[in-house]
């Protein structure tokens, strides 16, 4: 299944994966990112029960050095 991850197409392993699975695939510590799904922010406690659908727009954001 294909979603838009950080603006680029991304092929998920299974169909309708959970956000937590995606983070796991990508080896991203869930506590280190903020997640936006189709322009809405998803709270960390919903990562494990939020299913992704075809063409969903998923954004994984975190802090970086800046002035």
């Amino acid at each position, binding site marked *: 299944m294909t979603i838009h*991850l*950080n*603006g680029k197409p991304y092929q998920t392993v299974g169909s309708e994966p959970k956000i937590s699975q995606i983070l796991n695939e*990508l*080896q*991203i*510590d869930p506590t*280190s*990112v*903020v997640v*936006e799904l189709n*322009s809405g*922010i998803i*709270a960390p406690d919903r990562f494990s029960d939020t299913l992704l659908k075809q063409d969903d727009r998923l*954004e*994984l*954001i*975190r*802090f*970086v*050095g*800046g*002035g």
Partner: protein
Amino acid sequence: MLKISDTTFGSRLFLGTGKFSSAGVMKEAMEASGTEMITVALRRVDLDNPEDDIMSVLDRQRYTFLPNTSGARDSKEAIRLAHLARAASGTPWLKLEVTPDPRTLLPDPAETLIATEQLVKEGFIVLPYMNADPVLALRLQDVGAAAVMPLGSPIGTNQGILTAFQVEIIIEQARVPVVVDAGIGAPSHAALAMEMGADAVLVNTAISIAKDPVAMARAFGQAVEAGRTAFEAGMGRRTSQASASSPESGKLENDLGFLN
């Protein structure tokens, strides 16, 4: 003691975290500077370096984090970034940046005012980055900015406080702390800002791209203290007329009369 919103700060130097060569150098520089306020930016996760996380290396007890909205070109984008920042940081602190022109990276006064008003209503502690515009500073305070951050000169130019006359008016009229941001390229610039009566300064690239960032951070920390101390100690006026530091000579006579 500097107080913004309800938080007090022991240091009047705010440090940006951009462009450091390594996390280690950045941490050392922070410590050397004495800062208690750190700015960070938001970006998409680099999927090729999923472990690369600045927050994992910073001491969240020691520093107040001030997320910025860099990259936002209008109030809408800035507000969206603010929401992400709050979700990511768990705090309402926000350095608001709205810079439509990637070439000059100068802030948009009207969009900054709109975003400040909205975000204050949402409970953010908003520190807007702004052109050194005294009327805009008053308007931003009217809508609840916790501090104002006028620029000294365009970001990254190291040209110091080219906006001195406007910053002086902003300070004179301020009801909230004034933090001089952008263009501060040398400790003497930071000291000058404090001597003018600014409440704090934000420095980033002048430290992070120095040959020795840790030493430079220490230098800025000292300069900020020096400038603030001088401001409180009451500096002398500039004059156009010379006056001797040694006792003035009196009327001239024979011999050593010139000494008197």
